[in-house]
């Protein structure tokens, strides 16, 4: 490992620059009363008649919560849908791994919840860096998601009376999170997957599994289709359609180690970006506070312990730095419950960004535990005493088992050790209120877009957003565009397709020809280390500038040193990986630029230069209350920044306090 870690010579400096573009004024957000915006907007969208829907082709890339729900709903409407996934079945999307739950403003608890409150919590949780219109709509449709999922037969947790159970989650003082043991994502995804399979049987949807999308084809500002690689045969194919939807998930794996599934990647969104789609807020990356700490160099991923654990678990470190006693042997008076002390009203349930930074802070101060000193305790002994083993088992049984399996320690006997890890990306393709990118006919849904979570996502709201986009928003808004495309005949026989195909083939050839000495994983780990160290929990201008250089050098080395065995015309997992990492390297560069340009702290983006004395984020609403939408200007060209100003008509951006 040692050779990998040698710092790149800081003397080779590439200037970190960008150019200023225009203000974005076309987000298509309606105006007027917040509560009526979505309804009125829907009423004004163009419609496509049923007999015309049958003549329209839609490509959906991805079958996670967002893609599967979108494709199934579009199929039900009668469109001709083609779904592409690199997985060997649509049921394997990364969404399957979500554990904790899904929010909805049902107010079944009679605890005062409402659409307004869910809206407010989400926009505040995002540190006032999301659009009011979008977030309100999300809260509004959240209610229908639960109805639909129950009708699909999703076995949510229930109370003895037979009604749905809910629990609380970070960043909220209400119990609005619906769940299915510790496998909510699995159950929701299987619901959407079943609905998708029903449409496959009905003949409206075709699923192409083991296909990776490697480029997006754009002609005169309109999306015309995609270039795919058949992962079994290696064949490169062109696919044309009237509209294309990217539901390809987030880019947390740029960091190499993250809680994301190993194959999750940014290629589809990045390639769309290179074809003209703006990439918004790329540096907004969520680092989740409760993950199992890294144990060795061979480590391939980090495992999340659901945030729901913070409902009953208490976070602490010993009051004496370096205390090596067994945690059970440390008396109550010598434990520092720092979250409860610093944030009395939210306690262990502060939002993720705050909990993550607090863990880093106590570890930086020397209070960390475990062999590396980079961990804190999450302790269930109080809850077990108060509620009994049975209740705790019902709530967290599978998480406890998973923890024990990985670490060899039982949370029934000793507190868990946890540390923050990269988890979710709020940034993504810029989309308007209709979920359309700035390329006409190209849509982005789910984690792939930037839309609803601002600078920080609250727990249990990604599942909500993915399903809101797929079941209840896109099926309406896509018709507005398709209504204008009735007389267009999709064709793959164009120069844009030929060009995109040729470039894809050249990219593959180049990777195979390099025949270097470094494996893709080695180089990816290097990228991950740069990003984690300099564009992770805390950032500053100097480190970011260095990181920018380091990535440039790494990128150049990647194309000289990478070793990709095998050929392009066969099943070749290393080639797949290499293509993805090549794109992560470019995206990493943009993440750094974005983090550097945003001279404020907000949500997950903590700039060390801009914080209060207590280490809390210091926002600058005068200068930075906007979405940063970046435009690609070509290889080795600096990007252009377009600002979409955020107006707050209904909520007042306040200092986000969870004290």
């Amino acid at each position: 490992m040692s050779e990998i870690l040698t710092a790149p010579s800081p003397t080779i400096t590439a200037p970190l620059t960008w150019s200023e573009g225009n203000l974005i004024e076309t987000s298509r957000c309606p105006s007027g009363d917040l509560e009526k915006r979505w309804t009125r907007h829907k009423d004004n969208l163009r419609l496509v008649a049923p007999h015309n829907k049958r003549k329209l082709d839609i490509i959906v890339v991805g079958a996670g919560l967002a893609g599967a729900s979108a494709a199934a709903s579009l199929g039900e409407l009668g469109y001709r849908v083609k779904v592409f996934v690199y997985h060997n079945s649509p049921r394997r999307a990364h969404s399957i791994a979500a554990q904790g739950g899904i929010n909805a403003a049902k107010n079944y608890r009679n605890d005062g919840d409402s659409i307004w409150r869910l809206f407010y919590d989400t926009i505040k949780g995002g540190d006032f860096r999301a659009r009011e219109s979008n977030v309100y709509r999300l809260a509004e449709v959240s209610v229908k998601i639960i109805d639909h999922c129950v009708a699909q037969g999703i076995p949510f947790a229930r109370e003895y009376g037979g009604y749905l159970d809910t629990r609380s989650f970070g960043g909220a003082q209400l119990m609005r999170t619906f769940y299915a043991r510790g496998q909510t994502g699995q159950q929701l995804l299987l619901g959407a997957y079943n609905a998708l399979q029903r449409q496959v049987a009905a003949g409206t949807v075709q699923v192409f599994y083991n296909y990776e999308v490697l480029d997006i084809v754009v002609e005169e500002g309109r999306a015309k289709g995609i270039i795919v690689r058949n992962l079994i045969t290696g064949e490169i194919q062109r696919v044309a359609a009237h509209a294309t939807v990217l539901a390809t998930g987030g880019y947390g794996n740029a960091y190499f180690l993250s809680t994301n599934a190993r194959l999750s990647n940014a290629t589809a969104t990045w390639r769309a970006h290179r074809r003209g789609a703006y990439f918004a807020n790329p540096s907004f990356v969520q680092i989740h506070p409760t993950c199992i700490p890294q144990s060795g160099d061979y480590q391939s991923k980090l495992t999340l312990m659901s945030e729901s654990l913070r409902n009953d678990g208490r976070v602490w470190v010993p009051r004496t730095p370096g205390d090596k006693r067994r945690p059970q042997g440390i008396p109550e008076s010598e434990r520092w419950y720092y979250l409860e002390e610093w944030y009395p009203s939210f306690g262990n349930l502060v939002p993720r960004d705050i909990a993550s930074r607090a863990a880093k802070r106590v570890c930086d101060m020397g209070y960390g535990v475990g062999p590396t000193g980079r961990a804190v305790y999450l302790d269930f002994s109080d809850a077990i005493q108060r509620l009994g083993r049975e209740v705790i088992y019902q709530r967290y049984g599978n998480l406890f088992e998973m923890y024990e399996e990985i670490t060899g320690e039982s949370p029934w006997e000793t507190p868990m050790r946890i540390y923050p890890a990269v988890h979710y990306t709020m940034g993504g393709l810029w989309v308007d209120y209709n979920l359309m990118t700035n390329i006409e006919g190209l849509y982005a849904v789910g984690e792939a877009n930037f839309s609803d979570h601002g600078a920080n996502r609250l727990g249990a709201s990604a599942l909500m957003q993915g399903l809101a986009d797929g079941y209840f928003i896109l099926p309406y808004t896509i018709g507005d565009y398709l209504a204008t495309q009735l007389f267009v005949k999709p064709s793959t026989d164009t120069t844009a397709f030929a060009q995109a195909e040729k470039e894809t083939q050249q990219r593959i050839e180049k990777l195979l020809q390099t025949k270097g000495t470094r494996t893709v994983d080695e180089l990816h780990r290097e990228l991950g280390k740069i990003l984690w160290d300099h564009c992770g929990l805390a950032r500053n201008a100097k480190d970011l500038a260095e990181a920018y250089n380091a990535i440039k050098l790494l990128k150049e080395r990647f194309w000289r040193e990478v070793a990709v065995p095998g050929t392009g015309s066969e099943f070749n997992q290393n080639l797949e990986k290499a293509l993805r990492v090549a794109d992560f390297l470019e995206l990493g560069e943009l993440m750094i630029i974005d983090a550097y340009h945003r001279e404020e702290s907000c949500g997950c983006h903590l700039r060390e230069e801009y914080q209060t004395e207590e280490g809390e984020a210091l926002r600058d609403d005068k200068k930075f209350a906007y979405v940063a939408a970046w435009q690609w200007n070509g290889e080795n060209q600096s990007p252009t920044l377009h600002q979409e100003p955020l107006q707050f008509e209904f909520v007042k951006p306040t200092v986000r306090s969870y004290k």
Partner: protein
Amino acid sequence: MHFTLRVWRQKNAQDTGHFEIYDIDGVSPDASFLEMLDVLNEKLIKQGREPVAFDHDCREGICGSCGMFINGRAHGPLRNITTCRLYMRHFRDGETITIEPFRAKSFPVIKDLVVDRSALDKIVQAGGYISVNTGSSPDANSIPVPKPAADLAFTYAACIGCGACVAACKNASAMLFTAAKVAHFAMLPQGQPERRQRVKRMVAQMDKEGFGHCTNTGACAVECPAKIPLTAIAQLQRDFIWANLSPDPHAASSS
């Protein structure tokens, strides 16, 4: 730790395939089985040799991607656990570990340890859903579901679609997989309208895909990482007989 690995290598579906032997040293007992294979692959790439292809993604036991036959057992020596959740501390130092793909007629090999399990998707297409269109659902709490039924439905719904049940079965039957879906919906009020046709169609599709018959050996449930109980199969069998013997009020109107 040190291991001798006997790994099945097969270039593609047409190739006949063979075992290759690799020695691997310095493995941490805390490394997962897949991380051990990562280390092997890194070594092979550095030596200019073909790395071993294997399926994986979530690496936490939920996506159902991973799955290999290890020392003669689906997902390896432990019961009820996926390959990705195996750790090297579960093996003896110096042990020879034999690694093969899941073997079943309905799961053709794609390369090395990777097999095509899309036949399972086809079984779901045959009826593994509730026919409800987006937008037409009543309020979620309008139909209460007794907690025990909901809990049992969850137990059956937990299937990850890995196919270990098929690989573990001497008949290569997909009964546990199919039964899990049938039993899940059978527990819920929402699943009732299509209950009879669902079981008939899914069983017919299972046969069509070339999966073998179930002879109740129970080998599947021993390996099933989602711990789907054999009561799922009993439920399917009851429903199947009932669906074939008694008239279906829903089918009456359509036929």
